[in-house]
C-alpha cells in the first residue's frame, strides 16, 4: 500500500457518511478510554511510570547500535538466527527463503504490525504460501479481505452482526450467529486445527531485551503462544526500535503498554522466548529466526526530534483518544499505521509526497501527547511534517520534503507575515476588514468554513482602537 495513491479526502467523505462505522468506533473507543483511566487511577503514579517508560525507550535509542549488536550476539549464542532487512521487500524475501528451506506452505501468524507494514500475507500468497492470521480480530478481517483498522483491536470497526455474516459467508458449514460466545467458539475450533497443522509460526516482538537476547511478546488470546510453540519453526519480525537494554526496563513498560492498549492491569500471557528447543525439551520450535527490519527507522534516528517517533510501543491509545481517528476510523488513513502515530510515522516511511496529507488531519489538540505512555511529542512532530512538506529553508530531511511547496501558499503566508509584523499595515488591514470584511466573496477557505458555519464577523472597531478610545495606557 506504500506506493499506492492515497485519496484521503475521498476516504474521509466515505467514512464520515457511514453512520454504523462511526457508532462502532465511538462506543468501542470511549470504552477503552474509560478502562485506561480505571486501571491507572492515580495520576502521580501514572506519571512516574511514564517517566520510567520514556527513560527506558530513550536510553535504548541513545545506545541503539550497541544494543542491537548485543541483542544479535546474545540471540546467536542462544541459537536464534538473526537476519537484517533494510526494506520490507528484503524482509519478505528472507521469510520466503525460510519457508522454502523447510518446504513449508502453511504459515500461522500471531499479531504483528511489522508484518502488516511488509504486506507479508499478500507477498507469501503470490508465492503459493498460505499465511493465516490467528488473532481473532485479524482473523475476522482477513476473512473479509480487509486491512486492520486499529493497531490493537483490528476489527473494532465491525459489530457482532457483521462478524457473524463474515463467518457465515467465509467458513464452511457455519450458520449465521451474532452471539459473541458462539463466534468465539467458531474461531477456536477453526484455528486450533490450524495451529496443530501449521508448518511455521510467525510473531511480532513487543520488546527485545539486549541483556539476555530475549524476545518478549504480550497477548491475551494464547494464539501468540500457539504460533511460537506448536510449529517446528518460529519466525519473529521486529522493527529495529524494539530493543531495550535490560530486563529491568520491562516492568513499567509492560504495565503501561497493557494499561494503554486495553485498559488491563496485565495481559493473560507475557511470553519470553530466549532460545529454540533445547536437548531434552519436548516441545517448542527447533529453529527460531529473528528478522530485524529497518525500513526508514535508522534515518529517523539521525534527527533529535524525529527519533522520538521510535519510542513508540504500539499501544494504540493515541488512536483511542484522537478526535479525528474516532470519527474517520482506521481505513481512511489508507496506511498500515492510522491515527496520531500514523500521522508521524507514515509520512516518514512512505514520504511526504504520498502521505504528507495525513499530517494535515490534526487539529493539534494534544490529546495524543497527553496519553502517550512513552511521551512522544506527537503534535510537535506533526508540525514538523507540515514544515518539512513546504521546506521553506531547503534543509528538510524527511523523504519528499518540499513536496507541498507552492506559490499560492507561499504568497499567502508571506502576506500574513507582513500584516502581522508591520504594525501600520496591521492597522490598515484590520480596519479594512472592519469596514468590508462582511462582504468578502464566499470562495476558497471562507467557503470551506461556511459549509457548516456562518461567516466570521468583523468588528467595526478593533481592540487596538477601543483601547485608545477608552484611554487605556498604551505604548
Amino acid at each position, binding site marked *: 500500500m506504500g506506493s499506492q495513491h492515497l485519496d484521503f479526502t475521498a476516504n474521509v467523505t466515505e467514512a464520515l457518511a457511514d453512520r454504523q462505522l462511526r457508532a462502532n468506533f465511538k462506543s468501542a473507543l470511549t470504552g477503552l478510554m474509560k478502562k485506561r483511566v480505571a486501571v491507572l487511577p492515580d495520576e502521580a503514579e501514572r506519571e512516574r511510570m511514564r517517566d520510567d517508560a520514556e527513560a527506558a525507550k*530513550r536510553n535504548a535509542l541513545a545506545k541503539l547500535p550497541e544494543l542491537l549488536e548485543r541483542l544479535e550476539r546474545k540471540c546467536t549464542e542462544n541459537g536464534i538466527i538473526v537476519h*537484517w532487512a533494510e526494506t520490507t521487500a528484503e524482509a519478505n524475501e528472507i521469510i520466503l527463503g525460510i519457508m522454502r528451506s523447510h518446504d513449508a506452505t502453511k504459515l500461522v501468524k500471531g499479531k504483528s504490525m511489522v508484518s502488516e507494514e511488509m504486506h507479508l500475507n499478500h507477498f507469501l500468497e503470490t508465492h503459493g504460501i498460505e499465511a493465516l492470521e490467528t488473532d481473532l*480480530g485479524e482473523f475476522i478481517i482477513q476473512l473479509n479481505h480487509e486491512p486492520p483498522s486499529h493497531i490493537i483491536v483490528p476489527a473494532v470497526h465491525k459489530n457482532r452482526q457483521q462478524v457473524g455474516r463474515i463467518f457465515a459467508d467465509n467458513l464452511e458449514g457455519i450458520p449465521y450467529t451474532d452471539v459473541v*460466545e458462539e463466534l468465539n467458539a467458531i474461531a477456536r475450533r477453526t484455528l486450533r486445527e490450524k495451529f*496443530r497443522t501449521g508448518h511455521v509460526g510467525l510473531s511480532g516482538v513487543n520488546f527485545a531485551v539486549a541483556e539476555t537476547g530475549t524476545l518478549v511478546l504480550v497477548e491475551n488470546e494464547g494464539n501468540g503462544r500457539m504460533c511460537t510453540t506448536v510449529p517446528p519453526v518460529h519466525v519473529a519480525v521486529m522493527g*529495529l526500535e524494539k530493543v531495550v537494554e535490560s530486563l529491568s526496563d520491562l516492568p513499567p513498560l509492560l504495565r503501561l503498554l497493557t494499561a494503554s492498549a486495553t485498559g488491563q492491569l496485565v495481559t493473560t500471557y507475557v511470553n519470553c522466548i530466549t532460545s529454540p528447543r533445547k536437548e531434552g525439551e519436548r516441545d517448542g520450535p527447533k529453529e527460531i529466526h529473528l528478522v530485524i527490519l529497518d525500513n526508514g527507522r535508522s534515518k529517523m534516528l*539521525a534527527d533529535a526530534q524525529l527519533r522520538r517517533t521510535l519510542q513508540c510501543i504500539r499501544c494504540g491509545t493515541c488512536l483511542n483518544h484522537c478526535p479525528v481517528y474516532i470519527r474517520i476510523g482506521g481505513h481512511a488513513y489508507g496506511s498500515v499505521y492510522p491515527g496520531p502515530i500514523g500521522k508521524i510515522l507514515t509520512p516518514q516511511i512512505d514520504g511526504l509526497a504520498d502521505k504528507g496529507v495525513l499530517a494535515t488531519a490534526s487539529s493539534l489538540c494534544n490529546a495524543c501527547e497527553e496519553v502517550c505512555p512513552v511521551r512522544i511529542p506527537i503534535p510537535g512532530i506533526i508540525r514538523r511534517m507540515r514544515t518539512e512538506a513546504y521546506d521553506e529553508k531547503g534543509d528538510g530531511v524527511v523523504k519528499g520534503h518540499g513536496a507541498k511547496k507552492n506559490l499560492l501558499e507561499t504568497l499567502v503566508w508571506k502576506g500574513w507575515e507582513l500584516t502581522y509584523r508591520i504594525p501600520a499595515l496591521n492597522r490598515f488591514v484590520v480596519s479594512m476588514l472592519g469596514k468590508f470584511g462582511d462582504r468578502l466573496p464566499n470562495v476558497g477557505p471562507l467557503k470551506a468554513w461556511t459549509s457548516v458555519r456562518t461567516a466570521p464577523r468583523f468588528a467595526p472597531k478593533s481592540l487596538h482602537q477601543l483601547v485608545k478610545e477608552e484611554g487605556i495606557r498604551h505604548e
Partner: protein
Amino acid sequence: MSSTARDRIFARLHAARTTVSPHVPQGGNWQAPMLDKAQRIELLKTRMETVRSEVHVVSEAEWPAKLLEVLKAREPKTLTYGHDAWFGGTLRSKVKGKGMPKLVPYGENVEAFRDELFGIDVGITSTLGGIAENGTLIVWPTPQEPRLLSLVPTVHVALLKADAIYSTLAEAMREMRWAEGMPTNALLISGPSKTADIEMTLAFGVHGPKELIVLVLE
C-alpha cells in the same frame, strides 16, 4: 545480501551518533508497593479472580483433596501432566477410580504427542512462583513439564507455593536472577485465554485454556 543490509543499517545507526547527542531522562521513579506474605497471597488471589481465574488457598496436605474436588466438578475425561514433576507421584496415587480422568503423561516429543494433546481436557503444571501486583504465575517450562501443558488443554490447573509469591515483577526478576540466565521460554500467566476483539465483549478460552485454576499451597 543480508550481511550487506546489516552493514548499511549499522553505518546509518552509527552515523546518527554524530548528528544527535540525545538527552536521556532518569528512570527508576516507579515501584509497586512491597507487601508481607499474607498481603501477597490476598492480592494475588483478588487480582486473579478479577480476570476469572479460580484460586484456592490450601495447606500442603490438603491440595490433593482440593484437586479431586475441582476435577469432580468438571468431570474431565483426560488429564495431562509431567510424569517427573514433583507432584507426579501424588497424582498417580490420588487421581484414580470412578469419575476421575485418565492420566496421560506428556512423555514424548510434541511431534508424536500433538494430536492427542489437542484433545485433552486438563493440564496440570507446577509454577516457579507468583507475582502479587498483577495476579500472575511465573511458569518456566522444563523437559519434565513442557510448554504446551499450560496452553493446549481446555483447563489449566497450576500449583503455586505461597512462599514463592513475590510482591512485584521487578522483585521476582531480581530475586530469581533472571538476568543471569533466561530459560528457553519464560511465561507469565495471569488468567485463562481471553479476547475482546468482537465489540469489546470479553470472552474466555479463545485459543488456550478456558479456565485457570490455581491451588496456592501454604
